[in-house]
């Protein structure tokens, strides 16, 4: 009995590098002490020993098996502690949990990705996964918005994406500085300038709740059908196992039935943007 897998027990993971992405956002590079792999869009519970844990979607490529990158915005009690950790420390991971992006169902299609703020973390993992299968895709367009140029994370990513065949990446900021020479305005504004075959396309939205809401509304206005839109939902997920009840959204457990849902699955659920 005691030899059965304990679903609550974390895997100890060594922190080997901390990358500053923006004043509020850091990426933690971890080496798990046990074999660990995930599908893009799945999430993990990341813990600081004795302090607490919180759910994050890895931002690294699912093809990379020996290490894991998790991008964390300093927002509350646990993330404050995470931001103070130095390489050499140990963190705990549980997972991977939930349903990620159905990458195979994107084959033969154009993929539109709308992201905001720290929502680019799961998207970066998705972009790596899509790059891995780019021969099977028609096109990938990323539209990303952040508050200011200094809040824009993964700065080298955009040039790299624009150098990959079939990939296009656009950025915007709510408030520009003198050096900013790209778009200014909310992320949905970027959707006005892209060319995409909506009928043969899927849209992925990931970002803060307000952006998710208005991004989805705009994408529906563009002509996307409910089942063509994939939303990465964010809730207070304590267990990740579909048991603790904290992430219930209508009849769904976001941790187990999601975190990736089609808009079609959620559209009749009340208060999904709260």
């Amino acid at each position, binding site marked *: *009995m*005691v030899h*059965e*897998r*304990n*679903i*609550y*027990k*974390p895997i*100890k993971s060594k922190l080997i590098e901390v990358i500053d992405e923006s004043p509020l956002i850091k990426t933690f590079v971890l080496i798990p002490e046990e074999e660990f792999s995930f599908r893009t869009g799945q999430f993990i519970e990341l*813990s*600081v*020993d*004795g*302090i*607490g*844990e*919180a759910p994050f979607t890895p931002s690294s490529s699912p093809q990379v098996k020996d290490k894991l990158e998790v991008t964390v915005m300093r*927002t*509350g*009690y*646990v*993330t404050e502690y995470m931001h103070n950790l130095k390489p050499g420390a140990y963190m*705990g991971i549980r997972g991977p949990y939930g349903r990620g992006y159905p990458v195979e169902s994107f084959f033969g299609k154009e993929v539109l990705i709308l992201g905001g703020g720290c929502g680019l973390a799961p998207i970066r993992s998705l972009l790596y996964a899509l790059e891995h299968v780019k021969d099977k895709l028609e096109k990938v367009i990323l539209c990303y918005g952040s508050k200011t140029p200094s809040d824009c994370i993964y700065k080298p990513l955009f040039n790299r994406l624009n150098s990959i065949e079939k990939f296009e990446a656009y950025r915007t900021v709510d408030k520009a500085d003198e050096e900013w020479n790209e778009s200014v305005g909310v992320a949905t504004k970027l959707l006005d300038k892209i060319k995409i075959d909506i009928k043969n396309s899927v849209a992925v939205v990931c970002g*803060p*709740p307000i952006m998710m809401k208005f991004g989805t509304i705009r994408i529906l206005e563009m002509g996307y059908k409910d089942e063509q839109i994939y939303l990465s939902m*964010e*809730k*207070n997920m*304590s*267990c990740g*196992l*579909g*048991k*603790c*009840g*904290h*992430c*219930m*959204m*209508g*009849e769904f457990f976001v941790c187990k039935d999601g975190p990736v849902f089609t808009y079609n699955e959620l559209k009749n659920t009340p*208060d999904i943007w*709260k």
Partner: protein
Amino acid sequence: MNYLIIDKEEWDRFLGNLILSHNVFASVTDEFGQDYELIRPENIPDICYNKPKPATPLKSFFLPVKENVTSGKHSDKPRVILGVPNCDIEALKILDEFYLDKEFTDIFYKNRRESTLLISSDCFGIQEHCHCLSYNIKPYSTDTADLAIAYLNGKIALRVISGKGEDFARSITASRPAGDNTIASAIEKEHNATEALLAAANKGLPDSKKTGKLVMDAGEDVWKKHSARCVSCGACTTICPTCTCFLLIDKPGFEKVKQLDACQYPGFERTAGGEDGLFELSVRFRNRYMCKYAWKSAKFRSTACTGCGRCIEACIGKINKNEIFMELAKS
């Protein structure tokens, strides 16, 4: 139905021996009311039979309020729980769906389930808020428990339900099969009488086919009105035999402590970013009804309300969910 018969004195003697090898808990009546107690030689005579529910829901035996789920130990001593009403036995079905699901099995729950023998007690009579029958649940067990017990005319009658129950019954050497239908007929008469009491006490109460739609259709005004007396104490969820929400708390050494939680507590859904879908009292109050009668019934095979009535008894704001359903059915 087939019954095994044991004289009451023999049964008490059997229990006296059973407690040497098992932790036996039974429903006992004393000056504080009716609740489970660990059975010792001196309280065997206080065990009550065929009375409706004890104060504590059965879930407390399988889901402690607080436990270490990383280094916690499993108990080696097998356990017998005697006198479980069928509303609590039915409640175990949804807990099994949660905790024994194949993908993420909770080994602590599984161990407790496997090392526990459940002897259900047929209810002969009802308490003020009992309404199991309205949700299609009988006041006696026919599955999920291992055995069912009835005490009539100085005799203990055992109805075998599971294979585990059969093995247990076989170990009672003083038992004998009921020779004729006398005891079965007498018990059936009690079952029918209890069902008649339940039906009379809950006349007009919407059944489980209607409750989901009623809560989904209820407007904001309904929830605002009824939640006005709610103080978010969480008594209704704590005492509910199916409510199972919990929080994982971190302890040094990457240990996790699992603690019972409740959607009725402020901040239950709050994220670090500040979003809180259940911030408003009326929304939080409505959440419990939606969860029990609409969402869980869409997702699980088992019911999330077994009509035990404990939430009505426990509410310090005197909120009676049956009165709310009666009101919803009328409007």
